[in-house]
């Protein structure tokens, strides 16, 4: 199992459209180490690991072990070279039994009968050695996520793979399960394997990793050993320098528009996602809410917009006109099969100006929509064009036009510029600033530091459902 040579990644470069996801990244992973790859959302961690595991073929760069090169772009080739990846989203079949899932990795040939017990015996043997037993006949979907994670890892380990990549394995685990996982990772390390851990929680990285590579905006900003660094240093590398001075003059804060006290939200399976959040936003204010994705931002935004029931706490909304710009324009902001006109009309059709009893005044609506297209510089050749055929930036302008047009006094926006180019981003920012200048309040939930810095008059960060951290570094440390 032990390796002699380190795994070397050299000059990895990958572009997605205009986005440079990886920019000439090199790193060395030594046998017998747990190597953390750190970075914010979109820093390039997953792209790098997907390249290693053969799920994409990078434009440039190579991977070597000693003098042996690994051909990239084929998962099978990467597996042959001993690289196994444990995905963040489980690749398990929930309806299958544990044994059936474990056998999946072994079924390279369809010939012969399915001898589950025989196929999975070595995996169970391994599980016993790790003191990590799983029950073979249980239905996978019924098991707690921690155990599912275990099955996923065992599946990867059942191949004699000297290199194991784990993509944010602790995201769904409780503290005890995390300790359990770390114990197993230490065992694997002591066998001389390479364990690569994609992470964003600094406390965990400091607890388990031997060395760390930090990525930011697709570039490697640091590669060092853990004893030589500190949490603050790591956070600084991840986040970079953030401008502290606002480049616009917000108006004096006015009346309170929304006030939450002890607001808590649970998801469908009753797991708490937002935990006792207090906040208050006035006219002329931009409350920025930052943090790493998946720490309860979506749930908080939806609760504030009145789309989710509260599990506890109170929410007072003093604003009559609330506009919500959802995070995902494709799935929530727009009806993609609808025309530009019909999409602009999603909130407009409720206004009396466009109504005659139950009927719609489509003639008026068209004139108004023409106006919107001019005002928000939406590039389309006809109002009847389906919105699916617009570029992402123009789609977002449709959402923005619709939300801002009837002059809401409270705006709740989630990652309003995700996926947009610089030009469209600054357009969206200008419109949002304009709304605030005119007396609206804005709650801006964003994972983009620069966006928060450009707009927010004050910023808080979410960590595990709590809105308590004052800086991203604090939120990342997770000790708040």
């Amino acid at each position: 199992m032990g390796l002699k040579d380190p795994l070397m990644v050299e000059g990895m470069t990958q572009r997605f459209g205009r986005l440079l996801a990886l920019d000439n990244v090199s790193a060395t992973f030594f046998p017998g180490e747990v190597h953390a790859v750190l970075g914010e959302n979109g820093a390039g961690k997953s792209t790098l690991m997907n390249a290693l595991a053969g799920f994409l073929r990078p434009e440039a760069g190579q991977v070597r072990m000693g003098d042996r090169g690994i051909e990239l772009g084929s998962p099978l080739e990467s597996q042959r070279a001993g690289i196994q990846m444990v995905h963040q989203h489980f690749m398990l079949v929930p309806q299958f039994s544990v044994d059936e899932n474990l056998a999946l990795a072994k079924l390279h040939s369809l010939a012969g009968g399915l001898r589950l017990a025989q196929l999975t015996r070595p995996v169970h043997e391994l599980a016993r050695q790790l003191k990590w037993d799983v029950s073979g006949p249980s239905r996978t979907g019924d098991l707690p996520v921690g155990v599912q994670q275990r099955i996923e890892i065992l599946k990867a380990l059942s191949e004699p793979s000297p290199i194991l990549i784990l993509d944010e394995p602790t995201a769904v685990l409780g503290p005890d399960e995390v300790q359990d996982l770390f114990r197993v990772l230490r065992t694997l390390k002591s066998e001389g394997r390479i364990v690569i851990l994609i992470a964003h929680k600094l406390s965990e990285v400091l607890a388990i990793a031997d060395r760390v590579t930090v990525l930011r905006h697709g570039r490697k900003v640091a590669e060092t050993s853990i004893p030589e660094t500190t949490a603050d240093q790591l956070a600084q590398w991840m986040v970079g320098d953030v401008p502290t001075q606002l480049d616009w003059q917000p108006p004096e804060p006015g009346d309170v528009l929304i006030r939450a006290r002890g607001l808590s939200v649970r998801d469908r399976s009753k797991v708490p996602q937002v935990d006792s959040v207090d906040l208050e936003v006035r006219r002329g204010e931009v409350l920025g809410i930052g943090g790493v994705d998946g720490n309860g931002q979506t749930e908080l935004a939806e609760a504030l917009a009145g789309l989710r029931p509260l599990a506890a706490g109170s929410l007072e909304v003093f604003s009559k006109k609330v506009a919500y710009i959802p995070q995902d324009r494709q799935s929530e902001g727009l009806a993609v099969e609808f025309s530009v006109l019909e999409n602009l009309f999603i909130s407009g059709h409720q206004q009396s100006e466009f109504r005659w009893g139950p009927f719609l005044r489509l003639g008026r609506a068209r004139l108004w929509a023409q106006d919107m297209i001019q005002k928000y510089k939406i590039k389309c050749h006809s109002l009847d064009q389906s919105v699916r055929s617009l570029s992402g930036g123009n789609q977002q302008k449709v959402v923005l036009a619709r939300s801002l047009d009837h002059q809401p006094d409270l705006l709740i926006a989630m990652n309003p510029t995700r996926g947009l180019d610089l030009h469209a981003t600054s357009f969206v920012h200008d419109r949002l600033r304009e709304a605030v200048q005119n007396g609206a309040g804005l709650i801006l939930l964003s994972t983009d530091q620069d966006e928060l810095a450009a707009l927010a008059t004050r910023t808080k960060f979410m960590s595990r459902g709590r809105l308590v951290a004052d800086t991203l570094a604090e939120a990342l440390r997770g000790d708040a």
Partner: protein
Amino acid sequence: MIKKIGGFLWITLGLVAILLLTFACLGIPVFRSAGLIAQGSFGTWNDFTRTLVKTTPLLLTALGVLVAWRAGMYNIGGEGQFVIGGLSGAAVAQFAPGLPPSLMLGAILLATVLGGALYAGLAGWLHVKRGVQVVVSTILLNFIALEVLDWAVRGPLQEKKKQLPLTDLLAEGARLPRFSSQNDLHAGVIVAGLAVVIVGIVLFRTAWGYRVRLTGSNPGAAQAAGLRPGRIQVQAMMVSGALCGLAGGIEYTGMTAQIGTDLAQNWGFLAIPAALLGMLHPLGAGLASLYFGALFAGSKNLEAFTKAGSTIVFVVQAVAVLGFVWLSRWSEERALRREAEA
């Protein structure tokens, strides 16, 4: 709109081509058969009235289907709603025989609308509150409706002599008016025609119709805009069931005047391809229903060549829908490419 109508014409041409192909495959003389069908359905005024009378129940159920489908509710239960609608009407006739004739017809039709609406609303409610797939619940509710029909015409709604599994004949005054003693043309045909226009206006010119289409296209967007997609979906199901129930009521008061176990005649199932081939548009559904109505009316003439008779219509429908699904996917991709290039 003009583009839409052009699309419908293409579909109609395609349907004719499929019909001819079906004849060829079955070894029936192609053009003579087609001629006989055309003659049987459009040859004389009386032939044409038979086409219209066959079109009516199909069209009303197809309109019902398309309203639900536009809201993203895949209502397969037109048949059951048709039956429950008809039965509700028969129940009024049975249990309120004292109603004056002038009110009787209105009361029966109202009952058919309500019966269908509630029956479909149940499936909608189960979907929104309990997450039961509408496809599954409406199919199962079809079976229940057919069993209820079987029981009712042998039980509480059976005719006075208690001999046949049928309800009593409706009094003359409680039936839909007819225009001539030469044919079966009844006022329900006009109702169906009006329904096309009304459903079209409701879907495309009212706020409620807009919400239905928005919900069907993306419930997430409807919710984010502050609408309540669940409520809209239940409403759409109820309107859908109301139309299917009305179809049952019109068949009852316009054609059969009594209800037997064969009330539904598969109209509720045939409506789904009719709605689909009409591109879920009322006008398209109207044309598709007229086409299939004509086939039903004309296929009697085919008995000279084959015992298949109206079964051929089912074959044509099935082939047409398969072809349509393939075609619409192809044309959607083409349209997307064009829009992207523009």
